[in-house]
């Protein structure tokens, strides 16, 4: 079984104090720690487990600058066979759909039975690249997958719905799945393991290699644009809710509603 996994390198922002960049359209990532997108890590593990059971080959693909080799190497150390980095200044400013177009252009020429992506990425939280990619490649797909069973050329998957409900769906390969966190327990990648693959070659593809024109990619090829970033109004430390017990509860319910705390 030939599996392609699309992975993204993202800054870890949970602990970091985020500073916007000069143009206020991105964040200043200076000094930030980058790692593989959490969801993608589960996707790589899922691919390895399928390969361990079925045999086959895993190719990991990532779009971005040379630093992305870190996450590709990490995936190789985990058990992927090949790595490809898609890189071109013309890719800058691509929205999720344009990014799917870039990935599609690279993947269409690589043999594949299954493509895996994460459900979404830690940075933009978009949650759509994988499904758009499936559409562009003309593949059946399923999003938010929490379990995969293989039966011949059919995948029986669980999709995570709201409120603890799951959907069981059959998808015929070749297909694409977007992988939800918690589907497996991604294995640890040791420093020794990464050192062992340090010399492995990572193929590079540019816009030209992929026959992508400037109209399809980058800002020009994107139908959505970030106009600006700003910080949601949240004060330093907790905003203490005052009042009578009834008023406190009332305020809290309002906050819960606004913040998606009431399902």
């Amino acid at each position, binding site marked *: 079984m030939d599996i392609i996994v699309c992975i993204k390198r993202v800054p870890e*922002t*949970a*602990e970091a104090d985020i500073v916007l960049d000069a143009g206020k359209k991105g964040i200043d990532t200076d000094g930030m720690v980058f790692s593989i997108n959490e969801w993608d890590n589960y996707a790589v593990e899922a691919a390895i487990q399928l390969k361990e059971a079925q045999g086959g080959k895993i190719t990991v693909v990532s779009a971005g600058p040379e630093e992305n080799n870190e996450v590709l190497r990490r995936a190789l150390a985990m058990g992927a066979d090949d790595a490809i980095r898609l890189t071109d200044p013309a890719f800058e400013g691509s929205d*999720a*759909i344009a990014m*799917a177009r870039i990935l599609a252009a690279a993947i269409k020429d690589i043999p594949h039975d299954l493509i895996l992506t994460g*459900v979404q990425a830690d*940075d933009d*939280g*978009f*949650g*759509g690249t*994988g*499904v758009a990619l*499936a*559409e*562009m490649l003309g593949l*059946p*797909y*399923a*999003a*938010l997958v929490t379990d995969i069973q293989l039966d011949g050329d059919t995948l029986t998957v669980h999709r*995570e*719905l*709201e*409120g*603890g*409900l*799951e*959907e069981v*769906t*059959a998808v*015929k390969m070749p*297909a694409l799945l977007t992988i939800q*966190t*918690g589907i497996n327990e991604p294995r640890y990648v040791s420093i020794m393991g990464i050192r062992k693959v340090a010399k492995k070659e990572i193929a590079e593809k540019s816009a030209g290699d992929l026959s992508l024109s400037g109209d399809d990619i980058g800002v020009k090829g994107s*139908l*959505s*644009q970030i*106009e*600006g*970033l700003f910080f*949601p109004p*949240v004060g330093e*430390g*907790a905003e*203490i*809710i005052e009042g009578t*017990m*009834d008023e*406190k*509860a*009332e305020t*809290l*319910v309002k*906050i*819960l509603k606004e913040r*998606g705390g*009431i*399902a």
Partner: protein
Amino acid sequence: MKKIAVLVEHRQGEIREITFEMLGKAHQLAGSDDEVQALFLGDTSQKELVAKVSPHAHTTLAVYDAALKDFEPLRYGSALEAVLSNADCDLLLMGQTAFGMDLAPALAAKMTMPFTSDVVDIEILDGGVKATRQMYSGKVSAAVSLKEAPKRLLTVRAGAFPAEDVPEVSGEVREIAWSVDGDFAVRKFLSYIEAAVGDVDITQADVLVSVGRGIKDADNIPVAQELADALGGVVSCSRPVADKKWLPKERQVGTSGKTVKPRVYIALGISGAFQHQAGMKGAATIIAVNKDPKAPIFSIAHFGIVDDLFKVLPALTEKVRELKG
């Protein structure tokens, strides 16, 4: 005149709340000349569901076909294309839900619709569509504009807009013809399964009601469970509670427990040792209830109540129940 369409989301014979949230927002965006449309896909047995949404839309466009009984994105996508060619809407809203996330990005790609996802606010200015969405786990907001196009698509975060007081307009229902065309056997809905009892994965919960030492006794856990039930959430805990076996280890948040990133984390009687914080700091919204105003949990919580959790809990549970009727 502009037309704003909302794709009705339903499952297991019920209209999902997100539908009304989107209809409410659509009405707010619509001017007096504008039209709010509801788009319904289902089979004939689900016609009664249409009656629940059609009063809230000027026009409801419905496709009934046995093939649309359960959500399945390839068929739904095809039927939706047929509806959209009749709907003539400028903007289509879907939920950023398991339903919308499985459908919207493919539709956007297929129909070349400008699209952004998981929006928490929408503005229509001079015909342009601007949406606010969150990035970096809610730490940063982004203003996103969609390019000029005949139809634009947004998926909306659940809970971003109120579902109550959606205006009633005497809406008409129009059936749109659609028939199965294409190979849809490549993806097939099989069944729904409920998560097994006692098999709760706190890392997957959107809402966590988390209890700490302040809960005092195993006998008090049900009080927290009641709030979690009312919110549609799950009960988790800090280390002392798991240590004492008041809750199973799988429910423990923190460095020696699980790392969680729910939409809302309610910390009840948790002081917030940083080992605990490390496990929950990624939550989009943190609400802390603690008697001790100096408890470190307040430094990372977004909202706090300094009071006895045994007073706050019943009051809050009551209010939530009132709200949900």
